């Protein structure tokens, strides 16, 4: 048995978990790790800020389903990771963060770059560890990956003291999990839950499927489509669930919620049987909770028992992995369809017809202007060229919602966005992670001019690693979503939303040695996008769009979903 340093043991343990790449940034106490990395097969991508290491790890995880890994030093390195950890926690994304900690004997003595990482990240992670004994390291790393990737996935942080990293020990690879009495995952539902669900579903006259990130995490796309087909029910997806069913599935009615489609929001308001699959009844979906799905009984399926009944009472709750639950449900529904499925058949057919009518009546608007690029038009063009196959990583704000509305995905894991936390600055580093995980895929980073500037230093990482990202800046010269709220709810008092002094993008790109262009006329958009796609390396395309364009439909914050605003309010004449 070879005597190894803690740093070597750490990297061997990561390799054993199948880790191929680490996004990180070195520092004082992680020097021993970086010394081993110097000639180690593990790939390390040096980001330009630790926050972007955690976002990149997320982009890697979201687009591949594998656990993303990031690495930072103690103190500021660890605190900078925190936003990405909370983001991963909110969206249930499996990442493992490794941080260095000051030597054990200095903990609590306010040492240089000491921070209570274990305490700070306690509520930012699914679970976290402080390693002070080198012999515990292999098992803790194994446990960290297990916790991150099973059950409801999430971020796990392992804080390792410098004396552990420099110490020596015989490496005993973790063979199997040591018992974790406080952690068990229930994948399969109970029989009585399934029977209650089947009964619930056949009683429905206006069933409605509301599916989210849980479907993607459990890879239940095929089961979801089949479920909808047996039940003949519409599927609306959350912003976390986009791609869970292919865009052209006949029962798919787009996104629901604050900026959801008219059909999806009217459907959820009228349904008598709401089926939540891997969703958490988030306020951006429900609007005012007591007016959400007011006529519906609720069937809620989730792997996390704490989600059932958290925001909305479930008439039937099923705890389990969505894929496992849907398999069982589909089987039981097929078996019982002849006997029980006939009763409400006509009502259900009428319901589907009504949904289709709503879809026809109010599709997403498709504004076009000859002189300026409408942001919606930009999204349609990107969608057209990506053909449902490209990965689209977005930042947070108006462009995110337009992209969510107009992008059509053929499969899951093509849509990468910060759903729950809404962390600006996410888009560009997340796209890097997605590109690293999917080197042969086209990856668009669609970002606003605000979020782009939060992550701007990463252009250096992108250029240095030759990541062929297609960075599309939807540039409206303003923090668009904040501006939209100020327009609608704060009497147009536009406060601190102007983003003037935006850099010249050709020069900016050139400064990093990559190609770039600015386009501001609709006529030039398609050729510019094609040029970006034809470029083998990274490309920075700055697209100037109509500044004062709002995202509709919009459910005002705290309003009922059915009270969505479909178009700009009519100007009020003076004197009225």
């Amino acid at each position, binding site marked *: 048995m070879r005597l190894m340093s803690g740093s070597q043991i750490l990297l061997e343990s990561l390799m054993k978990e199948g880790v191929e790449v680490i996004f990180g940034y070195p520092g004082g106490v992680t020097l021993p790790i970086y010394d081993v990395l110097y000639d180690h097969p593990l790939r390390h991508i040096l980001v330009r800020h630790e926050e972007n290491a955690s976002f990149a790890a997320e982009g890697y995880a979201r687009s591949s389903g594998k656990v993303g890994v990031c690495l930072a030093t103690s103190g500021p390195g660890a605190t900078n990771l925190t936003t990405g950890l909370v983001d991963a926690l909110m969206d249930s994304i499996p990442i493992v963060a490794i941080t260095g900690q000051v030597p054990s004997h200095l903990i609590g003595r306010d040492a240089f770059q000491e921070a209570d990482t*274990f*305490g700070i990240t*306690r*509520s930012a992670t*699914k*679970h*976290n560890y*402080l390693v002070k004994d080198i012999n515990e390291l292999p098992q803790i790393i194994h446990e960290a990956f297990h*916790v991150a990737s099973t059950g409801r996935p999430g971020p796990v942080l392992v804080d390792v003291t410098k004396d552990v990293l420099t110490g020596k020990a015989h490496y005993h690879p973790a063979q199997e999990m040591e018992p*974790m*009495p*406080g*952690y*068990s995952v*229930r994948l399969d539902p*109970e029989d*009585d*839950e399934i029977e*209650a669900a089947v*009964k*619930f579903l056949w*009683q429905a006259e206006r069933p409605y499927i509301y599916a989210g990130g849980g479907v993607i995490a459990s890879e239940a796309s095929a089961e979801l489509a089949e479920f909808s087909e047996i039940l003949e029910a519409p599927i609306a997806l959350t912003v976390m669930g986009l791609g869970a069913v292919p865009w052209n599935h006949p029962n798919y009615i787009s996104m629901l919620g604050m900026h959801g489609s008219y059909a999806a929001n009217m459907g959820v308001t009228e349904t008598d049987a709401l089926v939540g699959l891997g969703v958490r009844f988030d306020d951006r979906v429900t609007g005012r909770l007591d007016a959400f799905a007011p006529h519906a*009984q609720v069937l*809620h399926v989730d792997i*996390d*028992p*704490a989600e*059932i*009944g*958290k925001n909305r*009472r*479930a*008439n*039937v*709750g*099923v*705890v389990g992995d969505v894929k496992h639950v849907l398999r069982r449900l589909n089987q039981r529904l097929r078996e019982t369809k002849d006997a029980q499925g006939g009763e409400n058949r006509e009502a259900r057919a009428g319901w589907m017809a009504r949904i289709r009518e709503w879809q026809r009546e109010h599709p997403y608007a498709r504004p076009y202007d000859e002189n300026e690029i409408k942001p919606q038009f930009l999204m349609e063009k990107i969608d057209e060229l990506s053909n449902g196959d490209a990965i689209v990583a977005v930042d947070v704000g108006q462009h995110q919602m337009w992209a969510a509305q107009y992008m059509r995905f053929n499969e899951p894991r093509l849509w990468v966005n910060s759903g729950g936390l809404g962390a600006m600055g996410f888009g560009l580093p997340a796209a890097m992670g997605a590109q690293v995980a999917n080197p042969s895929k086209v990856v668009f980073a669609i970002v606003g001019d605000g979020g782009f500037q939060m992550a701007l230093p990463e252009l250096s990482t992108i250029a240095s690693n030759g990541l062929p990202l297609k960075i599309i800046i939807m540039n409206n010269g303003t923090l668009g979503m904040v501006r939209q709220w100020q327009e609608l709810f704060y009497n147009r008092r536009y406060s601190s939303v102007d983003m003037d002094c935006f850099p010249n993008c050709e020069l900016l790109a050139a400064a990093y040695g990559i190609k770039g262009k600015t386009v501001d006329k609709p006529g030039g958009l398609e050729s510019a996008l094609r040029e970006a796609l034809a470029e083998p390396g990274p490309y920075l395309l700055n697209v100037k769009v109509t500044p004062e364009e709002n995202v509709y439909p919009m459910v005002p914050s705290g309003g009922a979903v059915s009270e969505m605003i479909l178009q700009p309010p009519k100007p009020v004449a003076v004197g009225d």
Partner: protein
Amino acid sequence: MQQLISLLVENKPGALMRVAGVLSARGYNIESLTVAKTLDPGMSSMTIVADVDPVMGPLLIKQITRLINVVQAVDLTESQSVCRELALIKVTVSPEMRPALLQEADIFRAKVVDAAPTSYTLEVTGASEKLDALIGLLHNYGQVEMIRSGAMAMARSPRSNKSNGFVEASRNTVKAVEPVKT
């Protein structure tokens, strides 16, 4: 609303912080907290009394159960349980009142654990209300100084043989099934 929560947690650094964090993140105040190891030295039992929004009570139990170091969380607020607290009470007392004090202490089955010329220190266990009543009475004798352990609770009539009194309801069998209205 005062919620009485009984927990079985792994005896590990940070376990208490995680549990307390679920409460503090929601702005709930912990009224009392007791922690000690169980027969299994790898486990600790905790009893928490917290001031909780009644609507969020059941959810809180699930969110505490979700913590990796928490093996079991049981809400004993409405259940049959034995709930006891210990108090040490130091009361100053004049020589002529000493017999009367001892008599009253006896009613509450309080024991004298320290005697000094001007004070007695009593040890008493019981339900929190009993302790409140005794402390109220002792104020009539002189200055009162006291320290309380906080409530410790154990479910009555355990269905299993487990000596810690936890019912067999691990997270594996957590159910949220409610009958469908017909």
